[in-house]
């Protein structure tokens, strides 16, 4: 088991030894760094291939279909066939597009996505850079795609794209707030901003158990950051057709697609790291645990995508500002208070878990109340109209 657990580190150490036998020390360091970066980029692409296939299969199965089954056994080469198709497609630039911005957007969108992988702890001792402010880095890098989407939407000179870009800015900036507050809760509990430190702080209890509210808020905000159902209004195919990337074709479109799935893995990885104890948990090798948890989280997201309708723009913003932000702020206050009073252990976890559930239940009750009010209003309006039509008495 120990061997399997350290497998990748052992390979790295062995390879480093091999290089050291014939290269000067600075060249060894450089080669290892470049290889590490290449490895992360390749991982990104593998992730895209694997998860597009998985997404199509999962959505198909939920919809009582078979899904891709033509290219190769069980259709596993479907993603590759798609990639080839993307590469061979004509690359169209609209006549009145802002050429440079239009060209730059798909390139800029992919860079922060790949950069984020640097701070993701894939296993015990397997992290690109153990940054002491990794959480801040994640938030900062997560902000860049907003800019690129606005770039793409504006440069396309298309009204649907522009609407999509408007929605992007409104949505992503709004959801950054509850996301950061949820992150802050975790940082409070862990006492560190390093992703490695956060994973190590969850040795006894994963933070999803300690503060379920932060977990739920982060999950929802993550879905919104990924533009996935029920927050996929940026690319709502049934409303604004494709949103900000409507004018993109061929490889430029594929870049947005790549970024989307790289981000999907990243957000699932962050959820795993922050709330599901990352690579911790016994018996299996650490990197395998990480992978399993990520796949489970991604499966959950696909399941949601296959079954839920989407919000409307005002509801989506209202949900962020009126529900998620207050709830996560109250939770932050709660966690700060309890963490100050009680020492880490069963008592603290228990108190926080119960109080979090109560908070969640309260928030849901309030939202249900609001929904009921709206239903009553709609009914009253209908009744008034029926009365107008039929005279005094209803039916």
């Amino acid at each position, binding site marked *: 088991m120990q061997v399997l657990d350290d497998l990748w580190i052992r390979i790295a150490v062995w390879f480093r030894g091999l290089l050291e036998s014939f290269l000067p020390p600075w060249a060894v360091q450089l080669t290892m760094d470049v290889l590490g970066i290449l490895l992360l980029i390749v991982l990104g692409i593998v992730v895209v291939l694997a998860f597009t296939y998985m997404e199509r299969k999962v*959505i198909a199965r*939920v*919809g*009582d*279909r078979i899904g891709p089954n033509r290219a190769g056994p069980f259709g596993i080469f479907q993603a590759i066939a798609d990639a080839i198709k993307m590469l061979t497609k004509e690359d169209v630039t609209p006549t009145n597009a802002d050429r440079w911005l239009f060209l730059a957007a798909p390139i800029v969108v992919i860079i922060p996505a790949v950069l984020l992988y640097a701070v993701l702890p894939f296993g015990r001792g397997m992290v690109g850079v153990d940054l002491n402010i990794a959480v801040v880095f994640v938030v900062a890098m997560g902000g860049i795609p907003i800019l690129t989407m606005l770039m793409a939407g504006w440069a396309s000179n298309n*009204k*649907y794209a*522009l*609407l999509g870009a*408007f*929605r992007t800015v409104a949505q992503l900036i709004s959801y950054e707030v509850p996301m950061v507050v949820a992150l802050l809760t975790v940082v409070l509990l862990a006492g560190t901003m390093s992703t490695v430190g956060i994973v190590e702080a969850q040795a006894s209890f994963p933070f999803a158990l300690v503060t379920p509210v932060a977990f739920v808020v982060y999950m929802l905000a993550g879905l919104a950051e990924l533009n996935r*159902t*029920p927050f*996929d*209004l940026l690319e*709502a*195919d*049934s*409303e*604004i*057709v494709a949103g900000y990337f409507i004018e993109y074709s061929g490889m430029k479109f594929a870049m947005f697609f790549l970024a989307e799935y790289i981000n999907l893995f990243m957000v699932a990885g962050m959820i795993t790291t922050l709330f599901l104890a990352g690579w911790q948990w016994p018996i299996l090798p650490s990197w395998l645990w990480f992978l399993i948890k990520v796949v489970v989280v991604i499966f959950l997201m696909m399941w949601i*995508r*296959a*079954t*839920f*309708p*989407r*919000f*409307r*723009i*005002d*509801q989506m913003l209202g949900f962020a500002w009126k529900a998620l932000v207050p709830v996560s702020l109250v939770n932050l206050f709660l966690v700060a208070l309890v963490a100050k009073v009680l020492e880490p252990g069963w008592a603290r976890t228990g108190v926080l878990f119960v109080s979090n559930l109560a908070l969640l239940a309260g928030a849901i009750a309030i939202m249900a109340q609001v*929904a009921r009010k*709206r*239903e009553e*209003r*709609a*009914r009253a*309006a*209908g*009744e*008034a*109209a*029926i009365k*107008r*039509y*039929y005279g005094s008495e*209803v*039916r």
Partner: protein
Amino acid sequence: MLKTETITINMGPQHPSTHGVFRMVLTLNGETIVDLKPMFGYLHRGLEKTSESRTYLQAVPFTDRLDYICSMSNNFAYAVAVEKLAGIEVPLRAEYIRVIMAELTRLVNHMLAVGFLFNDLGAWYTPVVYAFRERERILDLFEMASGSRMMCNYIRPGGVAADLPAEFLPQLRKMIPHLENFVREIRFYLSDNEIFKARAVGVGFLPADMAVAYSITGPVLRASGVKYDVRKAEPYSIYDQFEFDVPTQVAGDVYARYLQRLDEMDESLKILRQAVERIPDGEYATKVPSRLRPPKGEAYARIEAPKGELGFYLVSDGSPNPYRWRNRPPSLINLSALREMCLGHKVADVVTILGSIDITLADVDR
């Protein structure tokens, strides 16, 4: 200097959610609809004029192509109109077969309407695929009887094209509980979805008085609370012999229209249960000459098609060709209140409201 500008968006004619080649010119203030202009006619095939140069029987296949989802109902309405014009008696067994087919068509239509409504809401094809699965089973029955799945051309003036095959009724008997279960399933999984409710409740409100003023019919009208169903108001065929209710809703919004369709599916299944039990043996059609020459005169017959009141107005001058062949399409007339329903809502709601009206562009443009 800050200023705001309204933008104009052409939604359609090629758009994933306009249910065909329908175009809406939207004037938007941000995301809010300031003005909406529906444009149609992209699918105009001149079916009325074409039919006037054909004999009465030759026009039956054209009716299939009015609302291609409900071809049986269209046949039915046309057959009733021709029979009224020429005074043709229809055997009882044929009437039962017609009712069975019409109610199955209603099921097909409402299933798809509900499924596509969720597609418009962004539910990624899952509900619509389930709806299609059940629809396929019903289309199998249609194929069994008529040889065609969509363009059935089955209900003809005088009766139906052919008798039901022996395995049809047993199959249908088995289907009914299955379909009842399907409706229950839809209710269970979709009706209480919070996001769906948030998107549908209070959206696209159509007041009862306005609905009547626009001469809206069908589920859209009943969802606004007006209890009007041609099957009860002016019974045709043998609908007066069946026990069923006309469900209505109160709220008149997208959600009410959705619930209305589910309720109507339940009622259709009730009718089907009775029809399957009571269907008599006997002739399936009266002989009608292929060059039918109805006496001089005119006739308007209407039925409760799945989308609303479907009527045919025929004028005969005594020749084998109709002098005037006029069709009252429910889709077109229900569409007329679209602007009123959409004003003040968001872009996303337009798609939902259009989906809840449930139109077929072939029926709008003819």
